[in-house]
């Protein structure tokens, strides 16, 4: 099996899922988080090889903020550039609820076939 096909499949899957995961992380956090912190949380939660590159979450965070699903504020930092902290908005929570429903439905649907074929 070619490794590049696996990577391409993972990338296609991630296209919508990264945004869902980011919304869920921010919804589950009691405090505002900045990009690096979110990336590290995802890294810790994942066992084995990373499912996506952390660099790909930044443009998604920016997109979600532009859509009004996240708010952000900039806080100066001593270790480097100012950090942009994100927080989920009410619209973001509504989107998360909707997307979670779609995700559960999709997962159930896909599993029904995959579990049938696996030994």
């Amino acid at each position, binding site marked *: 099996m070619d490794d590049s096909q696996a990577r391409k499949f993972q990338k296609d899957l991630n*296209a919508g899922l990264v945004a869902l995961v980011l919304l869920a992380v921010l919804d589950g956090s009691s405090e505002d988080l*900045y*990009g*690096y912190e979110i*990336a590290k949380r995802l*890294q810790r939660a994942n066992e084995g090889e*990373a499912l996506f*590159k*952390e*660099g*790909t979450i*930044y*443009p*998604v965070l*920016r*997109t979600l903020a*532009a859509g009004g699903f996240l708010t952000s504020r900039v806080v100066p*930092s*001593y*270790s*480097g*550039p*100012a*950090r*942009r902290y994100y927080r989920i908005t009410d619209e973001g929570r509504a989107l998360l609820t909707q997307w979670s429903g779609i995700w559960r439905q999709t997962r159930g649907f896909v599993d029904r076939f995959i579990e049938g074929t696996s030994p």
Partner: protein
Amino acid sequence: MSAHAPRSIDEYLRQLRAALEGQDPALIQDALYDAEEYLRAELAAHPGKSEADVLELISSTYGAPDEVAAAYRDTEAKVKAALKTPVPAASVSASGWKRFFGVYLDPRAYTSLFYMLLTLATGILYFTIVVTGLSLSAGFAILIIGIPFFLAFIGITRVIALGEGRLIEAVTGERMPRRPMHPGPPAGWLSRIGEMLKDVRTWTTLLYLLVMLPLGIVYFTVTVTALSVGLAFTALPLVVLARWLGWASDVTVFSDDVHLGHWVLSDHSMISALILGALGVLIVTLLLHAARAVGRGHAHLAKALLVVPGA
């Protein structure tokens, strides 16, 4: 990508910039900002390791420059398609009359008009800040507070440049940076100042802020004149009609008749009023066209002076 793996943050950012070549300069600025935030945080999180060691891990965590560039390109394309203001059909397909009056349906024409009215205020503000900041910097230069004052002043102009860019993007739809310019690695006062003085964008930003005053005066004057004359003329037939009906007998639009060659335009004759009313509509329509064109042109100017020199 034939480029070898980057061994320093600067090298990583150079490769990322190269991988994004041809993209919107505002997008490049955002991508470089995000990458630098991550890389510096990662470096700070591993105090024992050298920059090269940390960078070695980066391609498996943050992603190699070309992977990150691809993520920004894809996301940007999707967002642009989703957020694009639909162009009214009349302004694209139809020609002639429909196209001329289609401008009334274009939201950009009104937002640009609003921007042109606003520029007098922002122009005065920017001009005052730059002139005050520059002269105080020169004055304080011999004192110990001269250097921090100059740094703070340049910092303020960068914040203004970002805000102005956001405003222009809202008004004209031209993509402008969503992040400020990156201040670069932490460094001493003197090297910071040196960097700022060497950066072309520092000076083009100041130039832009200064030029906004004369431009603002012109934009504001043209808008107010054309708008008041145009709307007054447009309303003239209604005034004459109201006077016939006895509702507005004491309203005078012009105190004297206007003589144009052997034509006499009076604010009592309906024919004069209709001619002037048509002229009024023409003026307002032309103003909206002009506003849309100025909005586009101004966005290009802003991009050339506030964004491009640094990207």
